[in-house]
């Protein structure tokens, strides 16, 4: 069965390491923060200028001057630091963030990603997404394997305007955990009860399938 949003977050959370500085994109990636393994500490970077993002405030902690990149009210975690947008993106662009998790519309076999614009619909802008994919060495894309019409989002080549070219190596979908290298997708793990055949069928780009594809365990 396809992974739920929370299961996707749980699986990605297993890629965390103690002491990681992590930037989580808006949407499902945000859920990863709820599943940090016991005894492990990670620090969340919010690109509007906060390292060490805490949970939403309680009513009496509300501070309009303290928001995250999704414009939500937040708090600071212990050991946080606050800085300008230029410093924040220096940190991101300079590769100092250990892991970036973000959503996407499409990913292709060359590691290109499209995540910010669907022509014909309103252009909202890329925000910090282009900087994030250009700056990070370690990025996990978190998205559904196919769109709501059943069209594959893992493509031979992205159709939509790119967020970044050749920068993605890891994708977790609701069906599979996929690595990208040598111009191909590589199937690494599959959702419990989902067949390799189904995954391959729903993957438009070339997918290399090893002899054994373990199920993701929960």
């Amino acid at each position: 069965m396809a992974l739920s949003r929370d299961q996707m977050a749980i699986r990605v959370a297993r890629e965390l390491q103690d002491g990681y500085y992590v930037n989580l994109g808006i949407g499902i990636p945000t859920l990863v923060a709820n599943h940090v393994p016991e005894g492990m500490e990670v620090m969340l970077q919010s690109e509007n200028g906060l390292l060490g993002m805490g949970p939403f405030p309680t009513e009496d902690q509300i501070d309009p001057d303290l928001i995250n990149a999704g414009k939500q009210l937040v708090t600071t975690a212990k050991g946080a630091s606050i800085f300008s947008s230029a410093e924040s993106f220096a940190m991101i662009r300079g590769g100092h963030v250990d892991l970036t998790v973000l959503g996407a519309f499409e990913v292709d076999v060359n590691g290109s990603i499209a995540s910010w614009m669907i022509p014909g619909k309103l252009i909202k802008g890329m925000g910090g997404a282009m900087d994030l994919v250009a700056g990070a060495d370690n990025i996990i894309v978190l998205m559904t394997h196919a769109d709501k019409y059943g069209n594959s989002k893992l493509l031979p080549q992205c159709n939509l305007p790119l967020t970044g070219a050749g920068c993605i190596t890891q994708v977790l979908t609701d069906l599979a955990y996929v690595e990208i290298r040598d111009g191909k997708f590589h199937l690494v793990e599959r959702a419990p009860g989902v067949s390799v055949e189904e995954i391959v069928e729903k993957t438009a780009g070339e997918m290399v399938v090893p002899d054994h594809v373990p199920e993701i365990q929960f």
Partner: protein
Amino acid sequence: MAGFDKVVNTYEEAMAGLEDGMTVIAGGFGICGIPENLINQIKKMGTKELTIISNNCGIDGFGLGVLLEDRQIKKMVSSYVGENKLFEEQLLSGQLEVELTPQGTLAEKMRAAGAGIPAFYTATGYGTDIGEGKDVREFNGRKYILEESIQGDFSIVKAWKADRYGNAIYRNTAMNFNPMAATAGKICVMEVEEIVEPGELDPMYVHTPGIYVDRLIQGTFEKRIEKRTVREG
């Protein structure tokens, strides 16, 4: 106003000299840390054909969004312009020009302008539409695009406290784009919640040195909240 005293007493004085067709760089992220009253003063002045450089364009009826109401903005340079219906209308009808710029590139373009750096290379946007027509160069086996600095006739920023000399500190994430914006305007107008006497701020913790600030005004702020995310206590 004499010596280093940057304080002006009215918003008219604060924005004096702003003319049709000028470029204004505005601090703020979303509607956090925005120069609310300076924006309202521009609305009041009715200045037209403005190019506004700011990460966002406020929301309907608040922040830079109010400048859309009388079509004062000709062009926006931003990284994210969602959450604004009037914006959408004017964009789709061709009344408003938009130049989308990645957020980190935008911040760095402002810093570069203030720092006398006309252009810099970044990997951000290489291989995308953003990189089209821009100079590409390879360093250590990776390709980068050349981005130019972006200067304003005016910059309008919001800080928390400043002394009369314009030495300023920002509060929490209301800092965001403000420090770079402050350096990137030919005339920098800063509004703050509190003006203190020189000597009251610790020199070690000044975020924006007064040298960047031309006019300083104390205001009161609504500080509207865009997404009121609250958890149980």
